[in-house]
């Protein structure tokens, strides 16, 4: 069954680097991998997007291996305000031949002081 997999939750302390991995074995060939951040009672917000290798912006880095079957969101030096749920979004190639835009189940990150 084509799907994405993320850890349910992670804990960290302020100032630490946090890495969240999403597995997506059936990712479609030509589509990007996108990560979102969601705070309670808000819609998800775009963080970063990449196709392969490494992408970095002012908020995060995204590491994608050559086979693209996983991706790792890296948050440097997290703060309390990074406490949120993080989702990966990929396009999967389904058994039916259809392509499906699919969210991961989300990783709840809790940052402690």
């Amino acid at each position, binding site marked *: 069954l084509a799907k994405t997999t993320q850890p349910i939750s992670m804990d960290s302390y302020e100032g630490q680097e946090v890495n969240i991995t999403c597995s997506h074995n059936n990712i479609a060939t030509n589509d990007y991998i*996108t990560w*979102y951040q969601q705070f309670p*009672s808000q*819609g998800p917000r*775009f963080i970063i*997007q990449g196709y392969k290798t490494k992408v970095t912006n002012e908020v995060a880095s995204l590491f994608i291996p050559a086979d693209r079957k996983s991706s790792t969101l890296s948050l440097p030096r997290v703060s309390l305000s990074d406490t949120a749920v993080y989702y990966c979004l990929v396009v999967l190639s389904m058994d039916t031949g259809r392509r499906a835009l*699919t969210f991961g189940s*989300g990783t709840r990150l809790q940052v402690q002081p």
Partner: protein
Amino acid sequence: DVKVTQSSRYLVKRTGEKVFLECVQDMDHENMFWYRQDPGLGLRLIYFSYDVKMKEKGDIPEGYSVSREKKERFSLILESASTNQTSMYLCASMTPYGLEDTDTQYFGPGTRLTVL
């Protein structure tokens, strides 16, 4: 700045009522989506639309229908609301995926629907 708005932040309805959730985007995006979000289940796609009057079922379309009469507006309809449709509903818009640098969904703030 992309803006996706939803008609209500909070809504309370009774079982059996017909419920309309409206979503409007101002970026001239072709694709629009409706998701529901429940604790422990993440975001689940209900329906999406890739053009005016075009729609496709997502993963959980049962009990829902949609309407896209104009490009900027995508409506989710609960024909006869039931208590198991109590949830957070999120609308999103996006340019057609598969194009470089455009696989980004922009989300509205969500509507928390309670069906009594």
